C-alpha cells in the first residue's frame, strides 16, 4: 500500500501537535537497584547476576541508597517537589526478560513530582513541564536468534541475558507539551538534549543513547485548532537525538494523513525505524495490559529526610543552561557564535581546552574548525575525534610561541589524531618546527635573491610588496618551516 503523505509544512499549518516525552535513564551507580551486582555495560551474558536480580524463589530486594540520592538530585535539578514519603510498587506482567514477572517501579507515589526544565529553541526559552521522576529497575535483554530480522518472528531460539536486570532506571515524564506548532520536533530534540546535559552535569549517568543508558519514548497527537487534543500514540525505539526529531516529525505527518483520509488515530505503541525514518504499529493499548499495581510489600516506604534533601539541593552543580550563559560572557561570544559552539557539542571541550591554558579564541578555532570538519567527515562525535583538550591547548601554545605556523600545526594535529603522541613530540619527531634562526635563514634568503634578480631589483627600488615572491621561494626551500615574518625582515634588510 502506497500512501502519498502530505508535506510537513502543510500539516502543521492545519493541525496543532501536542507532544510528550518519557525518558529512561540508567543510573551509573556501582551496584544494581536492589542487590550488590555490578552495573558495568557489557560483560559475558548472565555473569553479573545473583539470586536477587535473577528473581530466585525466596530472594528479597533491598533499595540502593545511591540510586535514591541520584533520583532526588535529578528531581531537584528539574525543579521538582521531592516526596516526603513514597513507596515502590509492583508492575505485574509476564515477560521472559523480567525475572520476577513483575517490575519494581513506582506508581501513584513517585519520588519527585511537578517540575520544569527550560530549553532554548531558536534563541527563545520554552518551559517544559515535568510530571514526575520515579525510580525503577531495568529488565533483562532478550535476543532472538536464527531468524532473519532479529525479532521473535522466525527465530529458532530466544536467549535472555539478565546482566541488565535490576540496573537502576529513572523515568522522567513530561507534562503534555502543546503550542509548539511546527517546532514540535525541534522542541522534542532540544528537550532531550538539555535533559541529557543536565543529567550529565549531575554525574549520575553517562546518558549515552547509543548504549541505551538514555532511552526515549515520544508521545504525539494532533488536533484541529480550537478542538480537544487528539488520541496519542507512543513511539518507542527512538535511539538518538536526531531520531527524536525525526520520529515526532514522521508521526505528525502520518497522523495527519490518517485524519485527512477521515480515519481515526488508534491509541497504540509504535516503533521508529532508524533506516526509513518512519514508524510502524506495535501493540495496541486499547486492550492494554492491566498491570495490577500495588505497593511493593518487600520494601519499606521511602521517606527522604528533609535536611538531606536540602543538602542535596545545596550541592547541585551549576546547571548547563546557566553554565553556558556564564561561559558565553567569559568567552565574549555573540549569541550566534555561542549557538554554533553548542550545536557542535563543543562547550565542554572548549572549556577544558581553556582550562589547559589557552585563549578562548585559540580553543574555539581548533574545535569548530579543523576538528569539527574531521568529525563531520568521519561521522563521529567531536569528543571522540582523537584529540583531547590538552592536545589542542598544547598545539595552540606552540603556535603562540611561534614554533608552529598554522599550516604546520594542522600537520601536527593530523599526527595527534593518528595517535602519534603529543603535539610537541610530533613536532620534534617529524622535524616540523618553524625555523626563525636568522643564521640558518640568511643562506636561504640569499639564494632566493640570487635566483630572482628581477624581484630583488624591484624591492631595492622600494616596491616592498614584491617581497612576497621571495618569501614564497624561501618557504618552499625550507618546506614551510621558516618563520614568514623573520624571512620578510631579512629580505628587506638585505636589499635596503
Amino acid at each position, binding site marked *: 500500500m502506497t500512501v502519498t503523505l502530505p508535506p510537513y509544512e502543510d500539516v502543521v499549518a492545519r493541525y496543532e501537535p501536542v507532544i510528550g516525552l518519557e525518558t529512561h535513564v540508567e543510573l551509573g551507580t556501582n551496584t544494581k537497584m536492589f542487590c550488590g551486582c555490578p552495573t558495568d555495560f557489557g560483560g559475558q551474558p548472565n555473569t553479573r547476576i545473583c*539470586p536477587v536480580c535473577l*528473581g530466585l524463589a*525466596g530472594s*528479597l530486594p533491598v533499595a540502593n541508597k545511591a540510586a535514591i540520592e541520584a533520583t532526588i538530585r535529578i528531581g531537584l535539578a528539574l525543579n521538582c517537589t521531592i516526596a516526603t514519603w513514597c513507596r515502590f510498587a509492583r508492575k505485574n506482567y509476564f515477560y521472559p526478560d523480567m525475572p520476577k*514477572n*513483575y517490575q519494581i517501579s513506582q506508581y501513584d507515589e513517585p519520588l519527585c513530582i511537578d517540575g520544569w526544565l527550560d530549553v532554548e529553541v531558536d534563541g527563545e526559552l520554552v518551559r517544559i513541564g515535568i510530571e514526575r521522576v520515579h525510580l525503577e529497575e531495568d529488565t533483562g535483554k532478550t535476543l532472538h536468534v536464527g531468524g532473519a530480522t532479529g525479532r521473535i518472528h522466525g527465530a529458532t531460539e530466544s536467549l535472555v541475558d539478565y546482566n541488565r536486570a535490576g540496573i537502576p532506571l529513572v523515568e522522567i515524564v513530561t507534562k503534555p507539551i502543546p503550542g509548539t506548532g511546527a517546532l514540535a520536533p525541534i522542541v522534542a530534540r532540544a528537550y532531550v538534549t538539555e535533559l541529557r546535559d543536565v543529567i550529565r552535569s549531575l554525574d549520575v549517568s553517562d546518558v549515552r543513547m547509543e548504549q541505551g543508558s538514555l532511552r526515549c519514548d515520544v508521545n504525539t497527537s494532533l488536533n484541529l485548532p480550537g478542538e480537544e487534543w487528539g488520541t496519542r500514540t507512543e513511539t518507542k525505539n527512538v535511539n538518538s537525538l536526531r531520531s527524536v526529531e525525526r520520529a515526532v516529525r514522521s508521526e505528525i505527518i502520518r497522523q495527519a494523513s490518517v485524519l485527512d483520509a477521515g480515519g481515526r488515530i488508534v491509541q497504540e505503541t509504535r516503533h521508529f525505524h532508524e533506516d526509513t525514518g518512519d514508524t510502524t504499529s506495535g501493540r495496541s493499548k486499547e486492550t492494554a495490559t492491566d498491570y495490577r499495581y*500495588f505497593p511493593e510489600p518487600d520494601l519499606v516506604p521511602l521517606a527522604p529526610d528533609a535536611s538531606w534533601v536540602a543538602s542535596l539541593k545545596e550541592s547541585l552543580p551549576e546547571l548547563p543552561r546557566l553554565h553556558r550563559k556564564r561561559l558565553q560572557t567569559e568567552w565574549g561570544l555573540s549569541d550566534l557564535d555561542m549557538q554554533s559552539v553548542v550545536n557542535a557539542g563543543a562547550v565542554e571541550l572548549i572549556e577544558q581546552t581553556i582550562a589547559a591554558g589557552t585563549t578562548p579564541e585559540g580553543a574555539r578555532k581548533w574545535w569548530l574548525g579543523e576538528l569539527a570538519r574531521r568529525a563531520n567527515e568521519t561521522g563521529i562525535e567531536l569528543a571522540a575525534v582523537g584529540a583531547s583538550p590538552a592536545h589542542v591547548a598544547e598545539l595552540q601554545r606552540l603556535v603562540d610561541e611561534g614554533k608552529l605556523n598554522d599550516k604546520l600545526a594542522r600537520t601536527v594535529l593530523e599526527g595527534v589524531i593518528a595517535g602519534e603522541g603529543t603535539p610537541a613530540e610530533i613536532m620534534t619527531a617529524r622535524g616540523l618546527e618553524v625555523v626563525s634562526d636568522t643564521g640558518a635563514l640568511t643562506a636561504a634568503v640569499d639564494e632566493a635573491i640570487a635566483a630572482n634578480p628581477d624581484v630583488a631589483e624591484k624591492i631595492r627600488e622600494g616596491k616592498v610588496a614584491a617581497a612576497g615572491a621571495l618569501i614564497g621561494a624561501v618557504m618552499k626551500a625550507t618546506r614551510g618551516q621558516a618563520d614568514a615574518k623573520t624571512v620578510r625582515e631579512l629580505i628587506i634588510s638585505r636589499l635596503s
Partner: protein
Amino acid sequence: MSDVTRLTATEIAALVASGDASATEITQAHLDRIAAVDDRVHAFLHVDTEGALAAATAVDERRAAGEELGPLAGVPVAVKDIVATKGVPSTAASKILEGWRPPYDATIVTRMREAGLVMLGKTNLDEFAMGSSTEYSAYGPTFNPWDLSRIPGGSGGGSAAALAAYEAPLAVGTDTGGSIRQPAAVTGTVGAKPTYGGTSRYGLIAFSSSLDTPGPCARTVEDAALLHAVLAGHDPRDSTSIPQPVPDVVGAARRGASGDLTGVKLGLVREFAGEGAEPGVMAAFHDAVDALTKLGAEVVEISCPNFQYALPAYYLIAPSECSSNLARFDGVRYGLRVGDDGAKALEEVMSLTRESGFGAEVKRRIMIGTYALSSGYYDAYYGQAQKVRTLITRDFTSAFERVDVLISPTTPFVAFPLGARTADPYQMYLADLYTIPANLYGGPGISVPCGLSEGLPVGLQITAPTLADDRMYRVAAALESAIGTLTPGELS
C-alpha cells in the same frame, strides 16, 4: 543410652555440651527414628542424611577442639520445605519447584548452621503454605501422630508432626495466617510466630510478603524460645527486618516456668471465646484460663470488634500478594517446564507449565488475588482489606493499653479427619479464624498445649504487642508448668 529422640532440645544440647553424647549419635538416632516411622507420618519431603551427619561431625570436631558452642549446638532441626536451603531440594511442596536446589541458604538457615544446629531435612506443607491441613501438598498429606487418620494442621503440618512423632526435637515453620500456631495446636506441640520483621524472610519462598514470618516449633516453650533466639535478629538482606534488639525470650520463658504470673493481665478476646468453637475446645481453654488465674494472672474480657473482618481481609491481601509472588514460576529460568517441544510459543509454554505445576488451591488464590488487584476492583477489594488491617491493628493497640497479652483458643476445632474439609474451602479457612488477626497486625503469637478434647490436643494462643515477644513466652511457660506437656500414644 535411653531413647534420645524423647529428649527436649535443651536436654540434648546439655548432653552434647558435656560430651555425654556426640552430635553424630544424636543425629543418627533421629535419622533412625525417621526411617522407622516416616512412612506412616510423612512429615518429611526430603531427608538430608549426608548433610545432617556432616553437620553433626563438624559440631563434634568443634567441641573436641575446645571451641565454645552455642546453646543449641548439636541439636537436630527439621525445616519446612518453603525455606531455601543451599544444594538441598526446596519445593514449597509444589510440582513447579520439583527438584530445584537453591544456590543459596535462607538467612535463618545460615543462622542455624552457625549456631551448630543440625538440619535433618525438609518437612511437608500445604503447597506454597496455602492451607490448614497439609492436604494440599503436591507430594501427599502428612498424618497426625495423635491419630493417623487425622490432619496435622497446616500449612506447617510436616514440622509439627515431626515433633509429635519424635522425629526431630526442633523444627522451623513459617506463619502467614497461622501456619505455625494451628499445626502446633492440633499436634500438642508449641509453635511461635515472632513479631513480623523480627525474623528474616530472606530465603523464604514468598507466599504473602507482608504477612510471612518464620518462627520456631518445639515440644516445650523453653526449646521454642531457644530456637527463636537463634532465628531472630536484624538482617540487612530483608528491608522489612526490624533493627531493634531481640527481646530476651529465653529469659522470659525461664521466668515463666517458675509458675508465677502475679501482676500479669490477660485479655480474653470476647469475639473468640464462644460461637464457632467446638465445646471440647472451649472446655479445655476455660480450664487453662482457670489454671492461669491460679498462677496469679488477672483475666479481663476484651472486645476486638474488628477481628470478625480479619478472615475476609486476609483472603484478599494474602492472595493478592501471592498472585504476584508466584508469577516468577514460569518455567523460563528454573523449576518445572512443560510443553517446550520447539513448536509452542513462549506464552503457551509458560501457561502449560503453570497449569500443570500448580495445585487447585494455589490456582484458586492466584485467581482471587489477580481479580482483587485488577484495575477497577483494587479499591473495593485490596484497598478495603488494607483499611480493615488498620482497624484490626487499632483493636490490638487499644487492647494492649489495658492488658499485657491477649488469649484465645488457637483454633476452633481439634484435628479433623483427612478429607473432612477439602470440599469446602471456607470450612478449611475457618481453621485460621483465631490466628489471622495477629498476622494482619504484625505482633507475635504462640500456641501452647492446654489440654485434650476427645483425646486430641487443644492449643491456647497468646498474642502480645509487636516487639514484646518475651511476654507471650512467659505466659506460655507458666501454663506449661501448670498443666505439663502432651504426649501422644505410640504410633499405630
